[in-house]
């Protein structure tokens, strides 16, 4: 583009933005007067909803001030830095109106029209109602303002060109609030609203293609989380994390406390339970459970068998049993029955059997703690075995637990175990 032309465009842009900001300033002053000094009902509700949306996970940096942003978000396209959403007038959203906030959540554009990178889950937040958006905004207006400038993103060419987001939006973004399904119960619709909207579960639990998008037909079908190398299982397949044959109580236990009789959350899901789900009311948690249980689909045909030659597989599995009996059986039981909820069962545990073996391999290598929650403040931890077991031993023991006791997983190779030794840990 011609330099003069782009300069002219930039100047025009700046002047338009300034006028816009001044108009907003007046409106937001009115809004904050209305909000009042005490924690009104709407602020309390907004805090609850902000937790349901897990805003804190991204908009608060480690040891940073609440909602002041600056958290690095590594993506395949470079590193994004989250923004300051405190009511600071210069560096935060202090000049925004409730209308600006709703439009941003709903449409993925800043008040000045600028495009937001879809790491911000606006494709989910678009489903949030105006009333809920206003409540979250009222809450954000009530927290202490922090003067902290947003750090510019560090994206590689060509992803540093925000215009590319237009293409992404055309392919993957559908604007629109959640529309209740009249054939379903109020409870089911509440669960769907939370899971698909504020909960933005699909951000991880759907496969992400090379363009960083998810097509709607693939929603909740599971996928490897980019950069983190954890596998977010399908929420629709009972072979993965589909909850079709779970009781409602086991689902709500898992979501609220991080542990259940069927399994335990670790890794990125531990973050979600820790920062968000543990704070949800019993009613909302149950609504999510009802919805999640309902979206599981009939079990698909068994996954393709392992590429490992059979003899190699059986050698691995016999070594695996030796490792298991020595290292794992004292907690997980000789028959993989575990001592739930704290020492999860491995027999008939979908997260062990699913086609991707990434999570069980990582658990053996790195161990892990479920989150400390109100319902489970002192969780039990899985020891990391990276330093005690060779690649082959890791592969062997994972192959064993994936195939023993009627489990229908496939063996894994030492190479797969080796590759995950260098997976990022946090």
């Amino acid at each position, binding site marked *: 583009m011609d330099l003069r032309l782009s300069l002219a465009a930039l100047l025009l842009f700046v002047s338009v933005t300034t006028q816009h900001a001044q108009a907003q300033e007046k409106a937001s002053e009115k809004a904050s007067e209305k909000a009042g000094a005490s924690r009104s009902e709407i602020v309390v509700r907004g805090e609850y909803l902000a937790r349901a949306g897990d805003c804190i996970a991204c908009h608060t940096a480690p*040891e940073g001030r609440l909602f002041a942003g600056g958290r690095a978000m590594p993506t395949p396209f470079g590193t994004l830095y989250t923004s300051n959403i405190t009511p600071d007038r210069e560096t935060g959203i202090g000049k925004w109106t409730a209308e600006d906030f709703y439009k941003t959540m709903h449409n993925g554009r800043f008040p000045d029209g600028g495009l937001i990178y879809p790491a911000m889950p606006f494709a989910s937040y678009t489903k949030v109602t105006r009333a809920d958006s206003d409540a979250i905004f009222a809450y954000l207006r009530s927290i202490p303002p922090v003067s902290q400038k947003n750090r510019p993103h560090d994206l590689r060419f060509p992803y540093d060109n925000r215009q590319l987001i237009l293409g992404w939006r055309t392919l993957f973004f559908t604007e629109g609030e959640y529309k209740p399904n009249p054939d379903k119960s109020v409870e089911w619709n509440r669960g769907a609203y939370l899971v698909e909207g504020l909960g933005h579960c699909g951000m991880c639990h759907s496969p992400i293609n090379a363009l960083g998008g998810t097509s709607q037909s693939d929603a909740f079908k599971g996928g490897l989380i980019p950069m983190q190398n954890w596998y977010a299982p399908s929420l629709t397949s009972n072979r993965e994390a589909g909850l079709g044959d779970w009781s409602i109580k086991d689902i709500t236990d898992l979501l609220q406390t991080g542990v259940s009789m069927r399994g335990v959350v670790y890794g990125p899901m531990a973050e979600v339970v820790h920062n968000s789900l543990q704070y949800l009311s019993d009613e909302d948690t149950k609504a999510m459970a009802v919805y999640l249980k309902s979206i599981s689909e009939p079990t698909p045909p068994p996954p393709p068998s392992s590429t490992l030659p059979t003899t190699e597989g059986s050698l691995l599995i016999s070594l695996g049993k030796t490792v298991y009996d020595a290292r794992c059986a004292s*907690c997980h039981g000789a028959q993989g029955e575990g001592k739930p909820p704290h020492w999860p069962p491995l027999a008939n545990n979908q997260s062990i059997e699913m086609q991707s073996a990434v999570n069980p391999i990582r658990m053996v290598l790195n161990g892990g703690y479920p989150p400390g929650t109100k319902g489970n403040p002192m969780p039990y931890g899985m020891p990391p075995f990276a330093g005690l077991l060779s690649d082959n031993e890791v592969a062997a023991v994972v192959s064993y637990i994936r195939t023993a006791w009627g489990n229908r997983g496939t063996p894994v190779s030492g190479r797969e175990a080796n590759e995950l030794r260098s997976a990022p840990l946090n």
Partner: protein
Amino acid sequence: MLARYWVPAAVAALHLTASNVAAAQDLNQAPDTMAARVEACTPCHGNKGEGTNDVYFPRLAGKPSGYLYNQLLAFRNGRRKYPPMNYLLEFLPDPYLQAMADYFAEQRPPLPPPGATDASQQTLQHGQSLVTRGDPVRQIPACGSCHGPALTGMEPGIPGLLGLRPNYISAQLGGWRYGTRTAKSPDCMQMVAARLTEEDVTAVAAYLATRPAPVNSAPAPKGTYVLPFACGSEPD
């Protein structure tokens, strides 16, 4: 009359049933102990926090609880960087980290016998001089002036220096020198380490590893001696 006998009997029967149920549950449940809860720590730090063969993983047992708690917080918050630790602790609440610190602080497995050293006599003498006397010219206080004359530390925040391998000590002093390990301000350990040379670090680490265990390896009670300067890790 009958009722009077009947009530205690019923209570006793109830009690019996309750304890039977509890016992039966115990078999199918993880034991309700800290030892079971911190098993995730043991592959690297030993069953009682005594350390393992891996020279880079420190002994935890018997260090002051306040020190251990500060380290757990620092790892959880990402201030002290070691990804396997940062990952394990990321979503654990403060009171639980305090309970973990208390647990390892209470453990008293014996200190290991001093290891053989291949350091020269000159290096060991230099190490001894820094540990016991410091270097006033370079404003380096003696290690013992904070970590105690017996080098067993002081409650609540100053760790003992015995039972640690030279590799661990030099790696940590290196971390302080280069600013990859930091503590609450005023960060006294960072100030001291910044004045040390490579040779100083090697000498201090080698000398410390040759020290035999004292009869009482417990940290000194809070306020036993006055620190040479203010230290954020050891609040007044």
